[in-house]
């Protein structure tokens, strides 16, 4: 090549150009690119829509520090106002009931051992509601369980009672890990909507992560819950 006439010697540009021109996209590569382009999302040609609230430039706060504080305060207020009702709305009264400390935790307010019939008097006195004994459910409960220690408490601003119940059937009692707790609560209007009219068995995670079975139902203004550990729940009450 060096012996050639300089005018005929290819310039480095031509050599580089020719070298690169040997490379071109294959048919398959072109097809791939076409497909990729056609499948890609189309570009947006429109300007972003205006926000709902437009603040005129003349009224904008010029001080960045105060503006940040004001924004933070507004955001916090908005969050508080929105989250609080939302959290109340999502409250699960059944799950909450199962988390209540039973008579085993606090000293009992009464002991019905050997005097099951006193249970009527206690709860009647507590609720002072003539509608309470319209239901025969406590009777059903007493047919299969023997009440023992119990305590009064307040739930959702209303009186409530928890009573330890021991299965009268020895086989069932052995099957159970321990006594079942009967909870009777007077329901507020809000809680009534969350309580099922029909009997419903649910599994609720306990504080120690242990699953507990709870059978709940509602009779008028009163909610009932039979809470026990994760063992087979008998069909009563």
């Amino acid at each position, binding site marked *: *090549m060096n012996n050639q006439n300089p005018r005929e010697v290819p310039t*480095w540009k031509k050599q*580089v150009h020719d070298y690169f021109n040997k490379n071109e996209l294959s048919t398959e590569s*072109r097809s*791939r690119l*076409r497909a990729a382009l056609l499948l890609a999302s189309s*570009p947006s*040609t429109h300007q972003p829509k205006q926000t709902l609230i437009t603040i005129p430039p003349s009224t904008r706060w010029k001080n960045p520090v105060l503006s940040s504080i004001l924004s933070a305060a507004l955001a916090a207020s908005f969050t508080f106002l929105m989250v609080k009702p939302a959290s109340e709305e999502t409250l699960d009264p059944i799950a909450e009931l199962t988390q209540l400390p039973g008579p085993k935790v606090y000293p009992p307010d009464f002991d019905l051992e050997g005097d099951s019939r006193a249970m009527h008097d206690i709860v009647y006195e507590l609720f002072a509601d003539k509608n309470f004994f319209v239901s025969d459910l406590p009777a059903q409960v007493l047919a299969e369980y023997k009440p023992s220690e119990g305590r009064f408490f307040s739930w959702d601003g209303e009186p409530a009672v928890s009573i330890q119940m021991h299965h009268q059937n020895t086989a069932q009692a052995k099957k159970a890990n321990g006594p079942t707790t009967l909870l009777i609560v007077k329901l507020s209007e809000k809680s009534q909507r969350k309580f099922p009219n029909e009997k419903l068995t649910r599994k609720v995670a306990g504080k120690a992560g242990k699953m507990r079975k709870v059978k709940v139902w509602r009779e008028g203004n009163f909610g009932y819950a039979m809470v026990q550990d994760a063992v087979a729940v008998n069909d009563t009450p």
Partner: protein
Amino acid sequence: MTTFVKKNWNEVFQQHSEVVWDSLYRFSLSLTRNQSEAEDLTQQTLLKALQALPGFFKANYFVETPEELDKLASETMTQDLQKHLLNWMIKIAKNSFLDSRNRSTHKLNHISLEDWSESEDFFHLSSTAEVGRTHPKQQLTPDSLSQLENDFFELALDDDWQKRFEDLNARQRSIIFLSAEEYSYKEIAQLLDIPLGTVMSTLSRALSKLRKSAK
């Protein structure tokens, strides 16, 4: 010539840009030295260009409203516009290449973008002895570089020049490629977003390396 259709940017962009796909691919190849990576870079560039196409028109034709944009897009795409489109995509390809290499070098905890670093002594000829006509600290001017090029033109590249070309760094390869495609120094500087002097010094250095073994 086809025209842009308002409602199908993808198809029309594909049709219009396909003319310059090979050029874009070759530029990508000059950066990556690898056909597979060059194809990936080309595809990545085309997809980015498609998404940024309205912005390209807005920036270059000073249209603001969607109506103006649609009107412009519906006009015939001229050859100049195609060339403009290719140059724009070359910029995108270069940035994409640097981004991906920056990511990979960052992962490997290496110094990133050493080939493109502004810290290089751009106006010094590293191989002046081989170039033979300039002082080590002499600054290049377009005239002196043209003289160097003219000298270089008289020398044929030997058969191994391609191997030495592969040994050049990405910036040198891309500048050699663009220069061989008859881009001016100014255009190369704009496309690669580097100073004009850097283009000249890099080209000079790259040419001197390419002629190392030329007899």
